[in-house]
């Protein structure tokens, strides 16, 4: 297999990494905001958060991608493919991040919050010293899983024209008629990405683990 193939797959890998990073960052920000809505004492916010999560979690990512890529231009919103796809991924995975954050906060026993308040800590102090440090620690592994899901999910972008790793593998296959090699290479790269992120998440988790 010529070196041109490797550089082509390398270009694809770069797009995959960029998209993963962008979409994960977007999903984190939006997901945290959604989680705040879902645990807030304001009913309409809670309802809106729940509606968002239900809607986005129950639509297959590929359907969402096709909907956004071919639907948005119909209402006059024609953005570059990469931006459209990264945005869709962020919107989709934000629903999962939201649930991770929400359940992370819920892992902090209520008694601790009551005890903190009894000790005279203000609401902000209670969040800062009691809830958030513990909640963040229990989110490490689930967020790692979301990250892995997102990294693998970027391969669906190939179906809507983004030349990321899978898309480049398809182009290489067309050119050299050697699907086994290009897909074996691609598979190896995806496995490397997911194993590495799994390992990193495990490391962080062990570092910050709290014994209960």
């Amino acid at each position, binding site marked *: 297999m010529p070196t041109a193939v490797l550089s082509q797959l390398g270009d694809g890998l770069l797009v995959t990494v960029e998209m993963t990073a962008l979409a994960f960052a977007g999903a984190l920000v939006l997901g945290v905001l959604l989680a705040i809505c879902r645990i807030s004492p304001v009913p309409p916010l809670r309802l809106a958060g729940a509606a968002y999560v239900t809607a986005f979690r129950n639509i297959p990512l590929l359907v969402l991608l*096709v909907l956004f890529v071919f639907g948005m*231009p*119909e209402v006059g919103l*024609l953005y570059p493919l990469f931006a459209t796809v990264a945005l869709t991924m962020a919107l989709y995975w934000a629903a999962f991040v939201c649930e991770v954050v929400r359940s992370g906060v819920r892992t902090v026993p209520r008694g601790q919050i009551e005890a903190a308040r009894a000790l005279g800590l203000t609401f902000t102090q209670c969040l800062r010293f009691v809830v958030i440090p513990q909640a963040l620690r229990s989110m490490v592994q689930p967020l790692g899983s979301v990250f892995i899901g997102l990294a693998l999910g970027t391969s669906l972008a*190939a179906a809507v024209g983004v030349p990321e790793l899978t898309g480049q593998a*398809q182009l290489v296959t067309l050119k050299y008629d050697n699907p*086994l090699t290009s*897909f*074996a290479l*691609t598979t190896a790269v995806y496995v490397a990405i997911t194993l590495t992120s799994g390992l990193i998440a495990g490391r962080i988790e062990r570092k910050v683990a709290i014994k209960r």
Partner: protein
Amino acid sequence: MTTRSSLTLPALLLTLTVACGLTACSSSSKMPAPPGSSGSAAGADSYQQVIDDAPVAAASDIPAGSLMAKIKARGTLNVGGTDAAALFALKDPVSGKVTGFDAGLADMLAKYIIGKPSTNRVQIDVTTREVLLQNGTVDSVLATYTITPARAQKVGFAGPYYSSGDAILVKSSDTAITKPSDLNGKSVCTETSSTAANDIKQFAPSAKVVLFQTNAECQQAVEQGRTDAYVLDQALLLGDAARDKNVKVVGQPFTDEPYGIGVPLSSPEMKTFVDNWLKLIESDGEWARLWKATIGTELSGDAPTPPVVGSAAGS
């Protein structure tokens, strides 16, 4: 084993994406009804008539121990194909029947061997065609499968049975693109599984190639201005332009795409058999009648002269 699983996983994913992409698209209200799905009653009748009139091979043509004998004993022909190519093989969402030029030929070939048009359709794409033929999952591939010398090292090609070439589809209002070299610097889409991706790179090296899963998506991308042009086999593009006045086909085909029927390389008797069958249906007019009932519903004029069997490099 490892190589098998590393292939089947992406293949499965691709099949899924194709299927889902298609569903999502056909739900769009703007999508015109493809021919074949709601074609005129007369067209549908003549299509069925062509298959009903198709010849059946004499018993002496099917020697014992040949692949054809195995297919006859099994009672169905395993055909690798697609169900998303307008005019060639398109599934009717209501009846579930796949019709088109390729689908019709598959039925006729099955009838020639078995005596009835009994086929078992296996969904294929560009990454799986050769492997499915090599491992015996399918007996033949009939799916606008362009004969190339590189592919001919892995599979046998009967035919060519049809000759097409890449053409360019643009928005009706576009006057800037009239020939392949005009595509330089433009974004050009094509189907994921088409050899057109290579042709674009060859004729317009600085064009930006965008791959979409289906014909409908590519056409939509041009209409929406997401890409400047769409390059694919002329016959398929003319079908698009006939159904949708917002797009047009410019220029003449700039490549030669001889379609062949893929058969296992290990069964040379099957290649000879299919070649002889092609010559038979071409000389008795069945080929032209099938063309009229399928591709001819979107193209005006008489059926073209079929390419000479064995004329393509690799066939």
